[in-house]
C-alpha cells in the first residue's frame, strides 16, 4: 500500500477518533465508529492478508450496528442537548484531542523501536486511536461512550498487534470481544428499562 495512502488513512483515523470524542449526537458517534473501522481494516491489511483483515471490518460494523439499533429503539432518550451548553465542552475536548495528537506524533520515533515490523503510519494510527480512546474513557461516565471508548482503544491496539502477531484464534477472539462489547453496551443502555429483579 503506498505511503501516501497510509498517511491519508492515519489522518482519517484521527479525524474519526476525535469526532467520536467531540460530537454530542449518538447517531453521529456510531457512524464515525463504523467509518473508523474502515481505516482500521485498511491499516491492518498492510500486515495481514486481506481475507483475515476483513474480520476487523465485519466485527466492527456489527458492533456499530448493534449499538445503533439499540439506542435508536430506546424510548424517550434525550440525546442531543442544547448546543450552547455543549460548546465549551466540545472546545475543551477538541483541544485535548489536538494536544494528544501532537504529543503522540512526537513519540512515534521512540515507539517505532518497540514495533519493529510496523510502518510509521501503522504506529501513529494505532497510538492515536489508543490515546483518543483513553481520553474518551477519562472524560465520560456515560456507559455508551465508555463502550465506544473501549472499542476505540481496542481498535488502536489491534492495528499495533497485527504487526506483531497473526494468529487466527487471536483474531477470532478479538472480533468476538468487539461484538461482545457492543452487546454489553446495548444491555447497559436498556438494563434500567427492563423489569426489575430483586
Amino acid at each position: 500500500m503506498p505511503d501516501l495512502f497510509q498517511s491519508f488513512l492515519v489522518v482519517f483515523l484521527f479525524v474519526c477518533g476525535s469526532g467520536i470524542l467531540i460530537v454530542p449526537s449518538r447517531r453521529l458517534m456510531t457512524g464515525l465508529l463504523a467509518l473508523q473501522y474502515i481505516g482500521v481494516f485498511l491499516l491492518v491489511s498492510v500486515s495481514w492478508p486481506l481475507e483475515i483483515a476483513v474480520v476487523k471490518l465485519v466485527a466492527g460494523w456489527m458492533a456499530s450496528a448493534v449499538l445503533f439499533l439499540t439506542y435508536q429503539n430506546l424510548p424517550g432518550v434525550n440525546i442531543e442537548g442544547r448546543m450552547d451548553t455543549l460548546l465549551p465542552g466540545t472546545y475543551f475536548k477538541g483541544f485535548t484531542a489536538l494536544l494528544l495528537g501532537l504529543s503522540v506524533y512526537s513519540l512515534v520515533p521512540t515507539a517505532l523501536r518497540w514495533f519493529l515490523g510496523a510502518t510509521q503510519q501503522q504506529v501513529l494510527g494505532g497510538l492515536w486511536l489508543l490515546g483518543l480512546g483513553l481520553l474518551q474513557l477519562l472524560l465520560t461516565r456515560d456507559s455508551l461512550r465508555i463502550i465506544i471508548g473501549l472499542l476505540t482503544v481496542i481498535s488502536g491496539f489491534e492495528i499495533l498487534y497485527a504487526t506483531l502477531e497473526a494468529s487466527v484464534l487471536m483474531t477470532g477472539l478479538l472480533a468476538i470481544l468487539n461484538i461482545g462489547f457492543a452487546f454489553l453496551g446495548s444491555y447497559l443502555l436498556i438494563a434500567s428499562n427492563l423489569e426489575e429483579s430483586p
Partner: protein
Amino acid sequence: MSTPILWILVPFMAAGVSLFFLQYRNLLRWNGLGFGLVLVTSALVLPINETFKFLFWEVELSDQLLIFGRRFILSGADQPVVILLFSLWLFWLVIMDPKLVPPQFIPLSLSGICLILTAYSVEPIFYGALFFAFLALIYVVLLSPPGKEPTPGVLRFLIFQILGMLFILFAAWLASWIDLNSGNQVMLARSLLILALGFSFILSIFPFISWISMVGERNHPFLSGFVFNTYFLGVFLFGTRFILEGGWIGQGVNIQEPLQIAGVIMLGFGGFMAISSNHLGRLLGAVIIAEIGRSLLAISLFQAGIPIYFGMVILQSVSLGVWSLSLTQLQQGINGLDYLSATGAARLWPVTTSGLLLGYFALAGLPLLGGFPIYWTLGSGLSFYPLWINSVFVLSTLGLVFGGLRLLGVLTKKIGEESILILGEPFYRYLILGLNILLVLIGILPQWIFRLTRTISGLMLGS
C-alpha cells in the same frame, strides 16, 4: 471426550441454556445445585488419560483440546483447581436466597467460572488475558441486574480489566522476543514494566483499586461478594501460572520484592480504609483490598506460601459468603448500608448481624477465628524479610480489627427500638449460624485446612 469439554464447554452451554429459564427461580437453583454436585464429583473421581467404564461405554478422558492450533489443558495436576472452582460455585449457590438474588446469578456465575478455567487452561498462557476480558464482560452484566443503572464502579472495573488485558498481551509478545535475543536487559525491563502494569490493572493493585470500594458501596452485596471472591482467585491462579510457565523466573528476575512491595501497599491501604470507613460496602472493599495484599505477600513466599494462599482462599470464601448472605438479609430491614442506617441492627437482628461480624473479624485476623492461624503462618513466613514489611503487616491487621470494633460499636448501639420484622427465612438464619460455627472451627482446628491446602499445592506444584 476431553476434560476441557467436560469442565468448560458443557457447563458453559448449560449456563447458556439456563438463561431461557430465568423465571423458574427454584427450578434453576435446584438444577444448579445438582449440576454443581455432578461437576465437583466428576472432578474428584474421574481418571484422566485412562480408559474407564461409564454405563455401557468404554470412555477415555483426554486432558487436552486443540482449537485453531492452541491447546486447552486440564490435566490431573489441575484437578484441585477444577474442584476448588466448582466447589466455590456450589457453595455460593447453596447460600443464595432466590428471593433476594437476581436469577441471572446462576447462569452468569457458572459461565464466569468456566471462563476462569479457560483462562487457566489455555496454552500459550498469555491468551488467558483475553478470556479475562470476556470474564469482565460477564461480570459487568452480573453486577448490573435488570432494572438498575450500571454503577460507575462497574464501568471502571470494565475499563481497568480491558486495559490490563492489552498490557499483558503486549508484554507477552515482548517476552517472546526476548527468547530470541536472550540477554537483552532493556527489552526484559520494558516487558516486565508492561507486565507489571497489566497485572496491576487486572489485580486492582494501587492505584487502580477505586472500583473495589465503589462496587462494594453501590452494588448488590451478594453479587459483589461472589465477584470479589472468584475474580481475584481467578486472577491469582492465572498470574501464578503465567509467571511459572512464561519463564519469567528463568530470566533471573527478582519478582519477590515487587510482589512484597505491592502486597504491603495494598494491605496498608486496606487497613487504613477499614479504620475510616463509614459504610458496610466500603468496609467490605477495605477488607478485600487488604486480602489482595495478603495474597500477594503469601505468593511472594513461593513454595512455602502457596498452601497459605489456598488456606486464605477457603477462608475468604466462607467469610465473604457469610458476610454477603447476612448483608443481603439485613438490607431488607435497613434503609441503606451506611453506618447511620445500620445503627443498632444487632439488637434487632442478632443472628443476621453475627454473620457480618464473624465474617469480617475472621478476615481481619481476630484470634480464635478462622483467619488468625492462617495469617499467623503468613506472618511467621514473612518474619525472615525486612522489618518494614512485618510492621505494615501487623499495623494493617490492627487497623482491620479496629474497623471491625467500630462496626461492632455501630451495630450494638442502643437506639431504643424494638423489632417486629423478622428478616429472611429460618433456613438462612441457620445457615448464617452454621457458617459462623465453621469460621470458629477453622480457627480452633486449622490443621484440617492446612492438610487440605498442602495436598492442593503439592498436586499443583508437582506438575
